[in-house]
């Protein structure tokens, strides 16, 4: 019988090794798998390359993972926010690498990685500093930049609901990068608010089919990042 549910976040992330590339879902706090990230901090693996849209807030979740010195490089589109001093300080001190990618290019590189497309041309960033050093080719008289697919060893994702096959449904704008990150990793680990019996998710509304999911952890009451940040919480 197929059952992708694992009993704890700690068990789900136990085999993430030093040097792994890890995609982490979320746009700011919306869709951030905070319990899986905290399990990764507890687990202690180092030298990670993290792919996310941002670089964390306050001292919890992704920011705490970065603060713990476990992250060598961040690939993202927007590492600045009002509470993103953890990344900013390390970056200024030259202790963390940044690959800055336009948000749509980031999404498409991840999608391509999951879809078996090694590279693609996009008009985005043509003529800007982010295209420097990249192959540029004209299509229809317009310059396009060659961008390479992104894949990962692991994706850590938050969803709203799952069944034992790993079929997923999301909540509102917490969906964002999750469906494409599920596709682009060798091992996809999902935390969900609700586990339901197979058949309880209408096949017409499944957003991520279970084929893209390897492990599901039931986290019925996930922490809200902005609340923790407002309370000044530091993890661990």
């Amino acid at each position, binding site marked *: 019988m197929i059952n992708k549910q694992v009993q704890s976040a700690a068990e789900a992330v136990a085999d993430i090794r030093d040097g792994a590339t890890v995609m982490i879902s979320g746009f700011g706090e919306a869709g951030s798998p905070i319990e899986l990230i905290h399990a990764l901090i507890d687990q202690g693996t180092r030298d990670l390359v993290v792919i996310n849209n941002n670089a964390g807030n306050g001292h919890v979740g992704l920011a705490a993972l970065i603060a713990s010195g476990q992250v060598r490089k961040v690939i993202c589109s927007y590492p600045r926010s009002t509470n993103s001093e953890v990344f900013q300080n390390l970056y200024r001190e030259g202790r963390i690498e940044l690959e800055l*990618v336009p948000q749509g290019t980031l999404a498409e590189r991840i999608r391509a990685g999951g879809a078996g497309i090694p590279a693609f041309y996009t008009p*985005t960033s043509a003529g800007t500093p982010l295209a420097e050093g990249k192959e540029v080719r004209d299509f229809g008289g317009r310059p396009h930049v060659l961008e390479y697919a992104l894949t990962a060893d692991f994706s850590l994702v938050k969803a709203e609901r799952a069944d034992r096959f790993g079929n997923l449904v999301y909540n509102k704008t917490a969906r964002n990068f999750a469906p494409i990150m599920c596709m682009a990793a060798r091992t996809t680990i999902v935390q969900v608010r609700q586990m339901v019996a197979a058949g309880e998710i209408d096949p017409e509304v499944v957003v991520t089919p279970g084929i893209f999911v390897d492990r599901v952890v039931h986290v019925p009451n996930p922490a809200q990042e902005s609340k923790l940040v407002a309370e000044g919480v530091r993890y661990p």
Partner: protein
Amino acid sequence: MNSKPVAIGLSREAMAWRAAQDIPDGAYVNLGIGIPEMVARFVPAGREVVYHSENGILGFGPPPEPGQEDPELINAGKKPITLQPGTSFFHHADSFAMIRGGHIDICILGAMQVAANGDLANWSTGEGGVPAVGGAMDLVAGVKQVFIITEHTTRKGEPKLLTRCTYPLTGAGVVSRVFTNYGVFDVADGRFIMREVAPGVHVETVQAATDGPLEIAPDLKVIKVIDAPVR
């Protein structure tokens, strides 16, 4: 207090109001953070506009009442928004397919600099710090019409409408229209064409504050702000 030059012409609200008049009924529109966000408040009654946000939502409504915020229902500025009849959600790759694929009719953004050749700089001054670009480069590369709302000059009084941008570009040759506190400008054929002027602003003032080729339209109109304050 420092001696910031006294701003003349349209207020921030009035700039947003003026830009809103150019959004046609039925348009799919992406609004940037800051003054562009205010445009939604001034779309003329009777026009139905569908707002897109990069983080995967189409057809959202205004900010919720205090206490009704949902941390999983936000816009690209990470601010809370509301559902409306007809709202849809989608993932990031689909969201940027809407942008890059030319499905969004208009995006309205802020600017650090706009050049007479349509170049836009609005993400970096190129001077150190932590760089961040977000979705701006995708928007200007893919959306059919790129409108800019910006003060005509910087806080120090330096022109923001230039012959060439000196800051790193967001996109090359992408801007079609600029709304400033001084007026409305089309960007075409390597020059700014002033179509409308704000009430109380002299054309000479605009010329002096613009550092690029500026043509005054023969049928230059004075903006009549109907329901937004003029400062």
